[in-house]
């Protein structure tokens, strides 16, 4: 039984790491703009497809696929910001960008449906079928890669935010956009940078999720609801909170599957969400919103 508990713990960390990757982008955008980007899910899907095609074109070079997904995500983020968020933000509306991203999401899904079709793609990387077995525990090399890439991404993001000028500028804009502007920081540039980083993360998470997900044009939408829940449980735009909440949700899913029923996963996760909102409305890691990013 101990082996099963340990195995489910590993499974939970793998799934949780994927959730963290998806939710980090949402957290960054929410932290800086206090806006939700509904098209985030579709950038994840596009990242997955970009990685799929590049990996297949380059005879199984999955790392090239991840790199291209990162770039595709970043470019899409820049586009979404430049064509939707920036013009609508200048008109002073908070609701319009939100609705516009729903429109972008539907448009991207249908464009992918026309171009790529609805039949599920089998994204098998060279690492998906390599299984490491030890003392009754099994783990694919793909899963190891997911944990390593997630940990590296979190570390790099943390270092970027703490130690670089741009990271500090980003935090300054999230705390007080007007004052940051008075200090010589261009808020529009920082917001654009936030979108690029968040969407690049989404693209990369798509590349990591692709071999795990049922890869169709709607793939991203199956994880985005959980990602939103993680952002809220973690503390509305709080990076540390998002990491903890993502791993927690992954572990809850695994242990619910083992000890209760997989059909109850959503009930348990969203019960946690409601409990968090009722008992600790600021999220697991409670800070002042201005300090979240």
């Amino acid at each position, binding site marked *: 039984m101990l082996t099963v508990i340990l195995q489910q713990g590993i499974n939970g960390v793998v799934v949780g790491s994927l959730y963290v990757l998806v939710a980090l982008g949402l957290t960054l955008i929410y932290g800086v703009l206090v806006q939700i980007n509904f098209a985030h899910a579709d950038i994840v899907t596009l990242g997955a497809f970009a990685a799929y095609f590049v990996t297949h074109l380059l005879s199984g070079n999955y790392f090239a696929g991840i790199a291209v997904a990162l770039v595709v995500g970043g470019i899409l983020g820049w586009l979404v910001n430049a064509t939707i968020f920036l013009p609508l933000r200048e008109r002073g509306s908070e609701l319009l960008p939100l609705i516009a991203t729903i429109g972008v999401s539907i448009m991207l899904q249908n464009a992918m449906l026309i171009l790529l079709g*609805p039949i599920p793609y089998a994204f098998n990387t060279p690492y998906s*079928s390599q299984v490491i077995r030890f003392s009754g525990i099994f783990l694919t090399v793909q899963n190891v890669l997911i944990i390593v890439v997630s940990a590296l991404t979190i570390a790099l993001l943390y270092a970027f935010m703490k130690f670089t000028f741009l990271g500090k500028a980003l935090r300054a804009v999230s705390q007080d956009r007007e004052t940051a502007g008075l200090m010589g920081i261009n808020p529009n540039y920082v917001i654009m940078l936030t979108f690029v980083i968040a969407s690049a993360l989404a693209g990369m998470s798509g590349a990591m999720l692709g071999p795990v997900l049922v890869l169709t044009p709607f793939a991203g939408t199956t*994880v985005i609801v959980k990602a939103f829940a993680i952002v809220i449980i973690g503390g509305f735009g709080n990076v540390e909170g998002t990491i903890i909440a993502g791993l927690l949700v992954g572990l809850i*899913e*695994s242990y619910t599957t083992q000890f209760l029923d997989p059909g109850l*996963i959503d009930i348990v996760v969203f019960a946690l969400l409601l409990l968090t909102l009722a008992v600790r409305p600021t999220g697991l890691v409670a800070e002042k919103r201005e300090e979240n990013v």
Partner: protein
Amino acid sequence: MIYRPFRKLRVPAIVIGGLLVASASQLHAADKVIKIGALFPISGPGSYFGVQDKQGVELAVEQLNKSGVNGYKFEVQYEDSACSPLPASQAAKRLIDQFKPDVAIGEECSDATLAIMPIMAQAKVPLLNAGSSSIKVTQPGNPWTFRIMPNEVMQGVDIATNAYKRLNARTAVLLHENTNAGIGNAKVFAETFTKLGGKILADIGFGRDVNDFTSIATRVAGLGKIDVIPTYTLEGQGLKITQALAQAGVVKGGGGKAIQLGTIWLPFGFEQKAGKAALGYVRIVQFDPTDKRAVVQDFIKAFKAKYNQAPTHINAHAYDQVMLIADVVRRGGKDAQSIRDGLAATKNFSGVTGSAEFDKTNQNIKMDTVHYMETMPDLSWKALKWN
């Protein structure tokens, strides 16, 4: 001088008007059309059904309309029923209000079919189904719904009996999506298998939004010796389950001993996507491409010529739906009521998936639409000839 801006347009307007009247009277002369309303999932996770259904329908209509049947041509209107009750009922209403079909075909997913059925019955339009397995479609059913596909009881009893008697299975773990069809199929298997003396070690249901099946495979791996794992899911989740069970070392494809049992829901080509994990998978298919009957081989040839690919069972059963309607028209069907009566009177219709003859509940009683296949190491199929 009075300016008359439309004066120059008078002559062309008369010519166009004349042409319209002429084409309208021509349309009236060729008005003998059987209108088929097609309700298929074109969006969402079941949309792979719709794409393949449409291919089968288009091929059948193209062949039939070359010479017509009893002076009738066939016209098809597609609506997206999305494999889900609410969009399916909206699509059915849209179809009836705007297209006014003589007969409808679809849906694939049982929940959607169950939502469509009362709407079709109220409009007195026969519905011919080839892809839903829930027993509720025909029991109690209604006089306007007919099903070619064997229902979940027919499939479940058959596969459980074969698992026990031919594969000597004594233990089973059930994996299924939490839908009418998923739960129903698993329940029938469990009842039959238990009655024969087998033991169900676990009954694991999951939602369609579950992506990672490693946790479920871990749970299955911890259940001890398992002989068979009947699995009831759509293609995407089916792929992930098969791969996860292989990674956990449970099924033959991963070096284990358990045999995964699959359903009609999975399309041709599933094995190629799942890879080595699918080794030893035994599953029911609705269409056997190795069947030597001329109707099957002609269909395969025509399909490859039109689409440059091999047909799947979904292509095949969509093709059969239209061909069965054509058979009814050949026997005198000309409107909704006569097509319904003709369907009910069908005897030994021979289609590409098998034959059809309906009982009092409008369920096809022929079992030759069930073909058992085993996945070989080179990922090809071996027909098991159990039926």
